[in-house]
């Protein structure tokens, strides 16, 4: 049952991802990107990371996708289907990406992974995650990320400001 759900979910996600990179109309690509994000959130649910599934929908669909659609609407000519969307080396890009996938799939398939999870996550792992973020082990990445977010906030306002 879980395997059937996983296969359906990943087929939907990967199919929508393919449409995202091959569609000529960028606006349609952005809408299919929403399906990809929701599908990935479903995969997080199957991994029992419900907190991340919620965050995924909130940040990716709610914030990043809104930004992308804003940028698409701010720039003219993007929705024009007559403009060529792909460069001259698109076939080489397809070969490189396909080869990389074949190599990765073979390696991942043959590696000796444990057949089942080695344990269950604790019931209140969200509280543990919150404590871990300010514990000595992870407080440095946490603070670096907060500075990065502040810098990105200031920087994007500065760059996009009308002069």
């Amino acid at each position, binding site marked *: 049952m879980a395997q059937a759900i996983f296969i359906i979910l990943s087929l939907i996600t990967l199919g929508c991802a393919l449409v995202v*990179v091959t569609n000529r109309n960028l606006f349609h*690509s952005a809408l299919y990107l929403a399906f990809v994000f929701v599908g990935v959130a479903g995969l997080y649910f199957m991994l029992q*990371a419900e907190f991340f599934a919620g965050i995924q929908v909130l940040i990716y669909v709610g914030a990043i996708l809104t930004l992308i659609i804003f*940028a698409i609407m701010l*720039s003219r000519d993007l929705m024009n289907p007559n403009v060529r969307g792909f460069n001259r080396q698109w076939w080489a890009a397809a070969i490189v990406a396909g080869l990389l996938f074949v190599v*990765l799939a073979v390696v991942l398939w043959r590696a000796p992974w444990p057949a089942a999870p080695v344990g269950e996550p604790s019931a209140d792992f969200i509280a543990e995650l919150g404590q871990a973020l300010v514990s000595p082990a992870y407080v440095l990445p946490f603070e670096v*990320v907060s500075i*990065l977010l502040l810098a990105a906030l200031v920087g994007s306002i500065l*760059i996009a400001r009308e002069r």
Partner: protein
Amino acid sequence: MVPLSWYLIVAAALFCIGLYGILARRNAIGILMAVELMLNAVNINLLAFWRYLTPAHMSGQVFALVVLAVAAAEAAVGLALIVAIYRTRDTVNVEEVDLMKL
């Protein structure tokens, strides 16, 4: 139960689709969308490894959160750059933005 390798292969496929998008697209916004696909693939890997190999430790979750924040910052700065380039050069085509080329 779904084997761990299935998650890893789905993430690898998502990553390679994003790679194709980055290499083949001419539009800067399309390239940014492909980058988001690749970051999602990374997060699937981090959470799959967390769930299957170290469910008692928080490192997988913490770094998935870091990747998420970096993705949000990258999208904000990248789209601001695209809007600025569009304003000055009237195009978002990465092949025509060649001011720094010799």
